[in-house]
């Protein structure tokens, strides 16, 4: 055993890595060595802390001092002041940087103390590349308990009683899914993990895999025991290189420890696990397409039933759960179904991880109990909207979901309340939009995504979404005509009813929900040829207010298209036929004489 007087935790999640946290780690190592501190201070590489907006994040224990936005050049000060002399570097602390209160540690920051971390329990706490650290915080203890004290039926019963529902979007009760598969008789069954996180703006599963890969391995082995499967596959997209690397490392370590293999921990339970890389097709997140892809075929969905629990991978009974769902399983086994079902709302138990993005101050990852209101997530934890702008809507569920307008900010978030609002939980992407976002443009963005990602197997999705996108493009270009909105609604209804898989069936949702809450914006585009938020460029015009213009000529000088003309004592004029709508003139005008609309 080696005692260190301080542990320096450096976030090595994708967000912080891209802002140089690995260089910070190298610099820290070099400076610790040159100051002779390397035998006293330990550097620990961890997964995502969740406060990605403030990254790179460095936490020093025992004080628990959390340093944010650390640059390589700050490392010297942290080493020389904090680690060498014991003086916390206040200017780098999270939250109020000028505050005298040095207790601004992890737990002291609003962003953290309002959360409840179950699926993310180990993210930012342990070194994901060290199996011992996972084991230390009760890792693989649930698996031990299951293998030595429980029957498969008891495990399934516990999952059912916990009320855990699929965190990938659908919200299907996990225990029930396991039960279906367990009741099948077959010579081989499979346990699969869906780590093909494809929603734009979502990175929950990525962070769990990067920060706590063993929790998924443990849960899949438990699932294997429960349904009688000996082989598992984790389907993860190749665009997640850090997640793939750490997952493979974790699998190798688990094999070395005998946690995966033909005789798990000497108990006779057999469970092997392999990674399958996806090439990043959105449709491969759909369960039947995912399994087709694992089999080595082109990732296309097939009709259900038969459901995977009956006929899945290679025609055998298969369960497929999402990363976050699995991350909850060991904790449920250890703390009991009763504890878990005490958290959340009546029909949605436990917590949900959300990836906060868009117009929000604390971009990052948060985990809150089901039933937390959108207002708490956006304002109390998310830190509100930048520059004091007004909240307009939040998009949940990515391209399959919908938006929640400001009037529903106080709705408790759970599976059923979101469906009632015309959106869905989805996998947990939460994109915040403010007054500067055009809702038609948002709908167009998501439609572009689904058109791109449609696999082309069924016509409603292949042709229908394309037609909807064409209409949206017309509308945003100011060429919308009466009847376009009604045509969108008709297409949406038919695609929902006739598409083969979840991708097609939910593709119209962004249109339907923006139409439901922001129909006036569509109408403004179609009938008044105006974009109220000033986003749709072809409908936008920059004009000079003659009364305010002092003829200084700055606008003409900065205009990249040279389409602003004027002379001394005469107000300047913008030639809109050449204008590229870049907005630079409005930004630079010292008299605020230029406006758009």
């Amino acid at each position, binding site marked *: *055993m*080696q*005692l*260190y*007087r*301080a*542990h320096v*935790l450096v976030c090595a999640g994708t967000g912080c890595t891209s802002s140089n946290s690995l260089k910070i780690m190298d610099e820290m190592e070099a400076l610790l060595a040159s100051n002779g501190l390397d*035998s*006293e201070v330990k550097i620990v590489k961890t997964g995502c802390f969740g406060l990605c907006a403030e990254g790179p994040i460095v936490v020093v*224990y*025992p*004080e628990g001092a959390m340093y944010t936005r650390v640059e390589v050049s700050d490392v010297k000060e942290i080493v020389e002041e904090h680690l*060498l*002399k*014991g*003086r916390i570097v206040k200017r780098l602390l999270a939250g109020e940087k000028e505050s005298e209160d040095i207790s601004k540690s992890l*737990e002291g920051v609003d962003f953290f103390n309002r959360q409840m971390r179950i699926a993310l329990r180990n993210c930012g*706490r*342990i070194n994901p590349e060290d199996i*011992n*650290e996972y*084991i*230390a*915080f*009760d*890792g*693989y*203890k649930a698996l*031990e308990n299951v293998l*030595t004290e429980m029957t498969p039926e008891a495990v399934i019963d516990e999952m059912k009683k916990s009320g855990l529902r699929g965190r990938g979007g659908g919200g299907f009760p996990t225990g029930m899914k396991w039960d279906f598969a367990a009741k099948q008789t077959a010579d081989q069954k499979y346990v699969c993990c869906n780590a093909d996180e494809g929603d734009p703006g979502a990175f929950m599963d990525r962070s769990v895999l990067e920060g706590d890969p063993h929790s998924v391995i443990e849960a899949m082995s438990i699932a294997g025991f429960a349904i009688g499967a000996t082989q598992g596959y984790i389907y993860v997209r190749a665009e997640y290189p850090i997640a793939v690397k750490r997952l493979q490392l974790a699998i190798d370590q688990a094999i070395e*420890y*005998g*946690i995966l*293999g033909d*005789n798990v*921990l*000497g*108990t006779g339970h057999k469970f092997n696990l392999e990674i399958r890389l996806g090439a990043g097709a959105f449709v491969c997140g759909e369960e039947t397409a995912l399994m087709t892809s694992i089999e080595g075929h082109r990732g296309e969905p097939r009709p259900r039933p038969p459901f995977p629990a009956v006929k899945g991978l290679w025609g055998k009974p298969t369960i497929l759960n999402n990363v976050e769902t699995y991350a909850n399983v060991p904790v449920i086994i250890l703390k009991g179904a009763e504890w878990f079902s005490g958290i959340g709302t009546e029909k949605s138990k436990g917590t949900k991880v959300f990836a906060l993005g868009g117009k929000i101050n604390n971009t990052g990852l948060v985990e809150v109990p089901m039933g937390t209101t959108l207002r708490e997530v956006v304002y109390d934890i998310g830190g509100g909207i930048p520059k004091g702008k007004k909240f307009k809507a939040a998009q949940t569920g990515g391209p399959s979901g919908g938006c929640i307008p400001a009037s529903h900010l106080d709705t408790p978030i759970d599976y059923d309340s979101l469906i009632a609002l015309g959106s869905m939980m989805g996998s947990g992407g939460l994109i915040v939009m403010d007054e500067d976002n055009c809702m038609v443009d948002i709908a167009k963005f998501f439609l572009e995504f689904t058109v791109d990602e449609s696999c082309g197997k069924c016509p409603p999705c292949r042709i229908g979404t394309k037609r909807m996108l064409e209409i949206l493009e017309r509308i945003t270009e100011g060429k919308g005509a009466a009847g376009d909105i009604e045509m969108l609604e008709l297409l949406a209804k038919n695609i929902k009813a006739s598409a083969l898989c979840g991708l097609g069936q939910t593709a119209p949702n962004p249109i339907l929900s923006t139409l439901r809450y922001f129909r006036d914006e569509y109408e403004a585009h179609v009938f008044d040829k105006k974009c109220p938020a000033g986003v749709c460029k072809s409908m936008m015009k920059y004009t000079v207010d003659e009364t305010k213009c002092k003829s200084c000529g700055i606008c003409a000088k900065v205009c990249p298209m040279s389409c602003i003309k004027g002379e001394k004592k005469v107000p300047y004029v913008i030639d809109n036929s050449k204008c590229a709508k870049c907005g630079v003139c409005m930004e630079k005008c010292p008299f605020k004489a230029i406006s758009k609309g």
Partner: protein
Amino acid sequence: MKSIAELDEIRKKTLDQLSIRSNEKGIKVVVAMATCGIAAGARPVMKAFIEEINKRNLNNVTVSITGCIGVCKMEPVVEILDKDGKKVTYVNMTPEKAERVVLEHIVNGNVCTDLTIGAQEGV
């Protein structure tokens, strides 16, 4: 391959090393290491604490450093806080004294009264 018992052993051992990252209260050894402390030899004292604690496999003890606590003439100063936050201040420390404090105070729970600030004030 590891057995369940071995896994439990790893769990216990690693948790000891990680106790520094949890909020659980344990015994804290705080070495004053401002310029005055370092000049008076606080670093060898701190290293002696770490070495002794390592050697004896003590759980739930953390060693940390702090700045100048104001009695520079009695440096190196070391404070030991027990689980309830009760504090004993040792002054004029040396690596040899550190070994004694670990054995008598931390392991056996007997404060080395003669090394405390109260006893040393007149020295």
